[in-house]
């Protein structure tokens, strides 16, 4: 019989684990999300920024050299390089990490450094040894316990709790000796009195279970929407408003997201939706991210490891200013002048300072009172800051073209106010650009996926979209979308409205043991999709909440 790859079946245990993670989220966040621990362990400390700014951060060409030694295919983008964003995978568990040398990473109760992984091809599996280093595993081992005896049923198997002759202490001793996980599993099998009497299937299940526990093989893979959306839904669903990955897939398709589009994205999903849209647009076209509060959150976006060029066509615009753009009263002069000379240099948070200033003056949208909530996500912000620096760093290392890049690379040159000013001017320029893009009201699509009530957002932002373009609104709950539906019907200018939800069922496929997985997700949110059309009667007046006429309503139902 063919051996099947170990695919962990959905066990009740897993459900418990999810619940415990959720509990931990309320309590000890550090334990629930080890990557948050990094924040506290000083990885994002000012000192780190200092190192980055002054070019002591090992650069891509260095790692390229390392890669060359380790693998002949170093030039390929498929090789793990320092500065990359990578995803660790063990079984069905994922974790996104930045590849940095001499940095301790905790994943699935193990700690290690990624140093040895650099230069290997993405998709390589590694075994974690006791010292925290990684040993590449060329061939995924096929463990074949030579005993091919098996029972036919369990009528004589009694649970006396004594079937395993190795004690807890024995196992611990084996582990402490640094014996390979695979051998521990073998020992467990040999010392199980009931193993031989188990049915072949039960033996298989036993091995898989033990392997999962003791055989610590981890694979390093390249980030993608598939991986990151699966990861976020499993690890931190609250941060992405419980947007399940198949729902995200629907958003991208129904939004007709593709290269060359001019998209408007309003999300509070840690930047995951934005990243997904960016991946699908491949750097072609433009995206305006509408953000509530003080600035866009892009923690998840940075995990994609996009090239710097992808960010050239990405701009952001404060939600609180959209109405003023629509009414034609938007101007930069209404913003306070940007003078930030007195900010400490090393801790420059990449211009988040201006964001603060920008969103404060005129809060005319409903996000006003919620600004405080935004600031309650310091770890997100820090993630973004770190990564945008790292991205700059990486891009400069690879392309080495822009003048600014070269200047920045030269060590021992302190960041001067000139640089800072330049950055702020750049930011201002981008803001004007974004306003101009919006002003045309000719976007090719709108995607809304936020924790806010979608109705007012949608009515406002749809004004920015050209006719005959799709829009998609995500909400964790169905009821607000019912309201959206009614309001859009009333207002007109949209057709083919559809409220939907997808269900996702995963299967275990094994010879003679195929069935749906025991646990499936209870819900991944709802979508309201539709297509914009010319709303002739409203074209004349710009009023947002013009009461609908009975006539139009009748027409809708023709």
């Amino acid at each position, binding site marked *: 019989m063919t051996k099947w790859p170990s695919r962990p079946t959905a066990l009740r245990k897993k459900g418990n684990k999810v619940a415990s993670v959720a509990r931990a989220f309320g309590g000890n966040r550090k334990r629930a999300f080890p990557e948050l621990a990094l924040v506290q362990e000083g990885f994002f400390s000012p000192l780190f920024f200092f190192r980055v700014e002054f070019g002591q951060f090992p650069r891509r060409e260095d790692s390229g050299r390392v890669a060359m030694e380790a693998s002949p295919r170093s030039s390929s983008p498929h090789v793990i390089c320092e500065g990359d964003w990578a995803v660790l995978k063990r079984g069905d568990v994922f974790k996104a990490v930045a590849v940095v040398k001499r940095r301790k990473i905790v994943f699935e109760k193990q700690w290690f450094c990624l140093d040895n992984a650099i230069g290997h091809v993405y998709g390589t599996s590694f075994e974690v040894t006791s010292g925290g280093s990684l040993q590449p595993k060329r061939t995924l081992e096929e463990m074949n316990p030579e005993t091919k005896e098996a029972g036919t049923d369990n009528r004589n198997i009694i649970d006396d709790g004594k079937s395993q002759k190795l004690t807890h202490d024995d196992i611990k001793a084996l582990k402490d000796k640094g014996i390979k996980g695979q051998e521990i599993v073998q020992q467990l099998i040999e010392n199980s009195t009931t193993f031989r009497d188990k049915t072949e299937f039960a033996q298989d299940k036993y091995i898989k279970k033990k392997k999962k526990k003791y055989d610590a093989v981890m694979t390093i893979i390249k980030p993608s929407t598939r991986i990151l959306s699966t990861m976020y839904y499993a690890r931190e669903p609250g941060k992405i408003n419980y947007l399940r990955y198949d729902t995200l897939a629907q958003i991208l*398709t129904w939004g007709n997201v593709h290269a060359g*589009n001019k998209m408007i994205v309003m999300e509070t999903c840690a930047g995951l939706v934005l990243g997904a849209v960016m991946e699908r647009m491949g750097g072609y076209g433009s995206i305006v991210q509408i953000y509530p509060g003080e600035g866009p959150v892009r923690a998840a976006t940075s995990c994609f490891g996009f090239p710097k060029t992808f960010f050239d066509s990405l701009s952001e615009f404060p939600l609180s200013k959209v109405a003023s753009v629509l009414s034609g009263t938007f101007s930069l002069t209404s913003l306070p002048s940007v003078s930030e000379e007195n900010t400490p240099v090393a801790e420059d948070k990449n211009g988040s300072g201006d964001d603060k200033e920008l969103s404060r003056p005129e809060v005319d949208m409903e996000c006003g009172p919620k600004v405080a909530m935004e600031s309650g996500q310091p770890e997100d912000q820090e993630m973004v800051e770190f990564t945008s620096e790292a991205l700059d760093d990486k891009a400069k290392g690879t392309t080495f073209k822009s003048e600014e890049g070269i200047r920045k690379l030269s060590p021992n040159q302190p960041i001067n106010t000139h640089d800072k000013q330049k950055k702020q001017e750049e930011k201002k320029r981008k803001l004007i650009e974004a306003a101009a893009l919006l002003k045309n009201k000719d976007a090719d699509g709108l995607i809304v996926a936020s924790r806010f009530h979608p109705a007012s957002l949608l009515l406002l932002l749809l004004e920015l979209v050209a*006719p005959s373009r799709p829009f998609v609104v995500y909400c964790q709950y169905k009821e607000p979308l019912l309201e959206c539906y*009614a309001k859009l019907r009333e207002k007109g200018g949209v057709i083919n409205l559809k*409220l939907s939800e997808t269900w996702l069922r*995963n299967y275990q*496929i094994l010879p003679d043991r195929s069935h749906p997985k025991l646990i499936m997700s209870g819900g991944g949110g709802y979508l309201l999709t539709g297509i914009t059309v*010319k709303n002739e009667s409203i074209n004349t007046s710009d009023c947002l909440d013009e009461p609908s006429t009975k006539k139009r309503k009748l027409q809708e139902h023709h």
Partner: protein
Amino acid sequence: MSFIEYGDTIKEGDTAIVFLGHESMFPVKVQPGGKTQTKYGVIRHSTDLIGKKYGSKVTCSKGGWVYILYPTPELWTLNLRHRTQILYSTDISLITMMLELKPGSIVCESGTGSASLSHAIIRTIAPTGHLYTVEFHQQRAEKAIEEFEEHKVGHLVTVKTQDVCKNGFGVTNVADAVFLDIPSPWEAVGHAKLALKHEGGRICSFSPCIEQVQRTCLALEEHGFTEITTSEILLRVYNVRTISLQIPDLGKTADGNSSTGVDGGNLSNEDALCPNLPQETVQFKSGVPLKEMVGHTGYLTFATKNLF
């Protein structure tokens, strides 16, 4: 017009979607002098369509009107002429994301069928990617080529007429992803592996029956594919309705006009349809599931080709 790039005005040669009302639409090829009959009367292409903006209302001869929409792969899927069973956008979405398709991806597909998925793939991988699609049915293959040309995406796709199980995709070591929608996908798994890039890629197989999935998974495992997973995605559509439920008469109405306790018909509903019914009602909005829904299209099996 092109399926991969939006345009504003309707031009000669475009494929436009005529939208008549709820779920009622059809595609039309815009030609000078062309006429299209609808239940609201005739649409004259030269005067009614050419030069107009997409998304505008077009009045037909009998006074009724329709909307003219820009063709997207999703609208095309709902309007194309079926030559085979087709994949719908719900499955297509998951396939696209799980195969990690994006601009620049090289994709192999078989069979082409009615090219519903093909259009979605081409949309996603444009402008730098390429689709190699294999269809052993001569007539279907030719029809697909014709459509791709008409939709101005011909440069992004190569249609081959051959049996993928015997002759493969006609390319080796180029693909980032392979999609199989054929009766015996396990016979094409080896060819799929050859078509995928040396450094790896993703594969997906769509099969309606679990026995097909079983054999495909075995074949994938034998060929060294990893991360083999099978899933199924179902779309639930809700009708938005304002529902009013009567409050039962519990025989207590006699003493003092009841309604004080029960907040009947007062649920902040701006479009309260029936204000003064003899009996009290409670109104609310609900998303009502359709009476019938698609319960099964097919199982989607995904896997990764790894170097090791």
